């Protein structure tokens, strides 16, 4: 065996061990052993026998009960006997793929996370925040062959779905009842499949939609109008995103939108020469201005032939578009600005270096934060940082950390052995759904899956995907 082969094999095996460490949880296994042994002890107790007067088998069960206490004590694990009301999500011991897939709509009043079914691109699956599937919805077939897209409200009880024409949007309840049909994108043609960027405005009833002419050349940077809608489709407010007299060299877009705070954050990027569309939009992921991304896989994007940087941020009132705050940045210093619901803070990532600033828009005060990767605001105090990795041998990974920037603490951390397709944070911030895709040369496509990560870094698989060619 050559040295190259030998070292390659050892490196591959070492990599596989890292994969195993990332996707399995020793703590969970020990906890399940604990649970199994506790069940035996409980059965012994139900039989009313005393360990001192029964057969060795039953005595062993009592020993098992001692083991439970020892393991729970030494590992600091929560025991259902000592803590019947845990504050954190209780993850199921097994992935749901072992059980039946529910085909009925999920119940109302339950916080849900929606993902695309990795085995059926035309179906969305809802999980509750214990990681169990709560139901599913059939998505409308797309005549052009693209997978339908969807966005969800923060509580997961309402969805915005692309209609089969790829440009009209439907607003539906989680139970599949249509609430509204939103107008198709201006200038859209059947082959373009462009719908207006739309997100829920922090609550579960208000939507913010950016409308612009998608039919004109350079449409990505076309002037946009921010429209505030109710989920029944009625327009509440509407105003231009760019301020009067703004130079054409600035490209304005929505960073965050919050109905309760009556606030939108608008970002202006330097756009000279103008950016252009380069490939078709098939995504519904909406990172800025929404709670993480929804579970939709696709690609989209624009290309700017020149250097990009953020020139300005405006904070405006949703009700009338009046500017309440403005920040102007020196040329070529800030790469991205992303905002959080409520418009209370933004994260400013530099064009060069890792020291970002989290700016409290109410006080104007900025806090420097070391962010080695792309930052995505999640809620009032948390932001997600992603650091993609590649070992030089074709193996991708994604290091995902959720930070509480006000407390300078790590809330969640995980490494997925593939590229990240999107994340959804639990409403209480204690669990994260992570979607990831893995390219498989064997099938000539990719496999997409979802896992749930809790605050202890424990990861459980939620789905089992099949090879997808797209």
């Amino acid at each position, binding site marked *: *065996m050559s040295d*190259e*082969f030998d070292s*390659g*094999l*050892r490196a*591959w*095996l*070492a990599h*596989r*061990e890292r*994969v*195993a*460490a990332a*996707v*399995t*949880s*020793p703590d*969970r*296994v*020990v906890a*399940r*052993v604990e649970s199994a*042994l506790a069940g035996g002890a409980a059965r012994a107790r139900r039989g009313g026998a005393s*360990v*001192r*007067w*029964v*057969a*060795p088998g039953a*005595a062993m069960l*009592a*020993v*098992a009960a*001692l*083991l439970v206490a*020892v*393991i729970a004590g*030494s*590992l600091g694990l929560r025991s259902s006997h000592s803590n019947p009301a845990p504050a954190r999500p209780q993850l199921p011991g*097994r*992935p749901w*793929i*072992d059980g039946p897939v529910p085909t009925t709509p999920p119940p109302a009043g339950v916080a849900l996370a929606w993902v695309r079914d990795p085995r059926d691109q035309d179906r969305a699956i809802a999980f509750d925040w214990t990681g169990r599937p709560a139901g599913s919805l059939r998505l409308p077939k797309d005549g052009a062959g693209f997978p339908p897209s969807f966005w969800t409200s923060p509580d997961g009880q309402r969805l915005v779905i692309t209609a089969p024409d790829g440009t009209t949007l439907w607003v539906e309840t989680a139970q599949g009842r249509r609430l509204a049909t939103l107008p198709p994108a201006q200038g859209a043609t059947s082959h373009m499949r462009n719908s207006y960027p739309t997100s829920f405005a922090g609550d579960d009833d208000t939507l913010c939609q950016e409308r612009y002419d998608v039919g004109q050349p350079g449409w990505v940077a076309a002037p946009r109008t921010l429209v505030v809608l109710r989920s029944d489709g009625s327009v509440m407010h509407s105003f231009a995103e760019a301020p009067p007299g703004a130079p054409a060299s600035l490209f304005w877009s929505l960073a965050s939108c919050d109905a309760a705070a009556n606030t939108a954050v608008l970002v202006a990027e330097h756009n000279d020469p103008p950016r252009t569309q380069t490939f078709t939009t098939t995504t519904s992921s909406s990172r800025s201005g929404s709670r993480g991304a929804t579970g939709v896989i696709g690609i989209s994007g624009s290309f700017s032939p020149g250097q990009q940087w953020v020139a300005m941020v405006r904070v405006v009132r949703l009700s009338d578009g009046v500017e309440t705050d403005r920040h102007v940045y020196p040329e070529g210093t800030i790469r991205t600005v992303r905002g959080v619901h409520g418009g209370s803070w933004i994260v400013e990532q530099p064009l060069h270096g890792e020291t970002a600033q989290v700016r409290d828009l109410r006080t104007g005060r900025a806090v420097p934060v070391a962010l080695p990767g792309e930052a995505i605001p999640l809620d009032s105090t948390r932001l997600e940082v992603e650091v993609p990795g590649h070992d030089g*041998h*074709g*193996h991708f990974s994604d290091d995902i950390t959720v930070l509480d920037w006000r407390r300078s603490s790590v809330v969640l951390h995980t490494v997925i*052995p*593939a590229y990240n397709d999107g994340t959804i944070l639990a409403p209480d911030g204690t669990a994260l759904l992570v979607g990831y895709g*893995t*390219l*498989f*040369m*064997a*099938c000539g496509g990719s496999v997409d899956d979802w896992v749930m990560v809790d605050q202890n870094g424990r990861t*459980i*698989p939620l789905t*089992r995907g*099949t*090879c997808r060619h797209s």
Partner: protein
Amino acid sequence: MLTQEGSGAALELAGAEEADEFAAVARRETPRLLAVAHSVLDDAGAAEDAVQDTLLLAWRSWASLRDPARRQAWLVRICVRRCLRVRRTLVLRARREDGGEALLEGRLAVPAQLDGGPIDWAAAYRRLSPAQRAVVTLHYHHGYSLDECAEALGRRPGTARRHLARALDKLREEARR
């Protein structure tokens, strides 16, 4: 049969010590067992199930294993055998499902090679049988001798050697492509 109160108390004492010892060993060895199980099964859920079963089986016979130095090898042996059994069950179950076996094989390739390097280890590794994967992992990654691999698999040393030789043949074949 425990019929004396005093004997019962002694057993409880001995049980507490054993439980303490078992908890410590379980905590220490579970990551390694998961790595071995995942290398054979390549499915996180199935690997965790197999290690859980391993620990429960081990606890059942814990008192009979007097030599602490052999506990690790003993646990690995239970784990590997358990994995081979689980793997057989998964294959049978997958065959009953729509496209199940192909799906199962797909799971064995996390993550796959993307950049066209000299050897597609994911594809090569996927060609190995579960027993071959176990031998390769234990021998090349965990430093087991072939005799120890044979013991872990519950096979003769000659069988373990053949598994390793065939595994390396398949891997080399992939390397020459």
